[in-house]
């Protein structure tokens, strides 16, 4: 399994969007992450799957700079990871909408926090993205009036408004029902294709990972290690909805599932 981890695909170190070398994280006696090394090329969509508590979120916290690097090297677009890095947009499982802001206000929140664009253009951009995610009729509503799916669409709009080259997503659709999830996955793929972002997508749903990604990295149970790094050779553009019926998709899914299972035993 360790060979699989070493078999890093993708770009050379110099122009990698994300670069990790020998990164370990300890929380007291507990090892949260063990010797992680990988590169992600610009524009690549990479998912990280693994059992809960294996350190997937730890990985993201390192990339956002919310968790200081203890050992090893973490670089985002060639620069050391740091908190508040405007090259990075973070999206969580919970929508994190501010309840006292309207849909439009929430879509603009990230841009406001980072001081991007003058007021008028900011609003224009937010309106444009709200339209893209299908919320144009709801700009003046407060989050309490929106369904779960709509709130997460609102969060997607906020994330893409930032126009950061790197998107870090921590199980963004984990709390949604199956139908809504499929819709939002396809929406994410469309936005990703339009905006050419590098995506690190954390999920515990292997089907989601395979359907969305160029590469799936599999992590083992604690202490979290990357035990496999699998290229997904499904043609683009994809529709997650259509893939559900594709034979090829299910074959790759089974293959990755076996690796995941082996990793969980090791």
């Amino acid at each position: 399994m360790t060979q699989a981890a070493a078999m890093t695909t993708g770009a050379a170190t110099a122009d990698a969007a994300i670069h990790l070398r020998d990164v370990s994280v300890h929380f007291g006696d507990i090892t949260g992450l063990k010797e992680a090394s990988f590169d992600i090329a610009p524009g690549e969509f990479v998912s990280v799957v693994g059992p809960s508590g294996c350190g997937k979120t730890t990985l993201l916290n390192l990339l956002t700079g919310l968790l200081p690097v203890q050992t090893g090297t973490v670089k985002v677009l060639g620069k050391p990871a740091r908190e508040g890095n405007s090259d990075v947009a973070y999206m969580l499982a919970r929508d994190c909408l501010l309840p006292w802001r309207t849909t439009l206000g929430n879509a603009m929140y990230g841009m406001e926090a980072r001081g991007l664009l003058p007021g008028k253009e900011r609003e224009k951009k937010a309106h444009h993205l709200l339209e893209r995610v299908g919320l144009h009729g709801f700009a003046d509503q407060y989050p309490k009036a929106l369904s779960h799916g709509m709130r997460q669409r609102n969060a997607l709009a906020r994330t893409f408004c930032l126009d950061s080259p790197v998107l870090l997503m921590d199980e963004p659709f984990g709390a949604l029902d199956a139908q809504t999830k499929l819709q939002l996955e396809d929406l994410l793929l469309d936005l990703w294709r339009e905006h050419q972002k590098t995506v690190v997508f954390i999920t515990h749903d292997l089907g989601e990972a395979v359907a969305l990604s160029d590469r799936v990295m599999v992590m083992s149970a604690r202490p979290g290690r990357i035990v496999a790094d699998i290229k997904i050779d499904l043609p683009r553009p994809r529709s997650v909805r259509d893939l559900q019926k594709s034979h090829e998709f299910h074959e790759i899914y089974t293959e990755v599932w076996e690796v995941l299972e082996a990793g969980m035993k090791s």
Partner: protein
Amino acid sequence: MNDHNKTPPLTMGWIVAHLVFIAALIALWETSARLRWVDPLMIGKPSDAVGFLWEGFVTERSLWKDIGYTLFGTFASFVLGSTMAILTGLMFVTWPATERFATPYLTLLNAIPRIALAPLFLLWFGLGLGSKIAVGVSLSYFVVLAATVAGIRSVSGDIVTLARSLGVSKGRIFRTITLPSAVPSIFSGLRLALVYSMLGVIGAELIAAEHGIGQTLSFLQANFETSAVMALLLVLALIGLAVTMGMSWLERHLLRWQ
């Protein structure tokens, strides 16, 4: 915007039903007193109560002064108690050590039945406004303090994480995320505190005061003027209702997103 959980509107039929019910109740009360089914000394008489209110509000106008004193005392203890409580809450959250240090003492103080403090406050602050405000503050302070601390703690950790990833500074996170998140909880604390302030003030007046509804109530009760006592209780209930409704209205308009 979303009005679907409101109670159905008060139709004419309902209003008539309520009026009939209230009229029947008053008629029964008056009759029981007049025919001495119940000793009028126990329940008073509605007709006498109305006479008392007429005198107090219209011909002699002495009740206005009492209400003025009670309401002023209530608002003063509310404002003073709430302000102190919110400041304490902010201090506790900014410097957690202060909370750890103060909690045992505050818990002990909060365990004292506040009305038992009234004699001491009378000694310290006299029969005027001071003592009743002190009792009011001693009640409202703790309510708002608990609500403030709980409100500030209730902020979503995920939203703070998101804001940090956006590069928002700690101070700005506190001002623009933590505090607004605490507002609903603080508000429900304030609503309770207003009622508690009035409770404290009237309680203090009942024990001893120069002016105020509580003091008048105690005087009338001592003279077995039961009808007047009943009338004043009604006035108190109406004032309490008006105060709570006013707060709810304010809350609805300030926190439309809730």
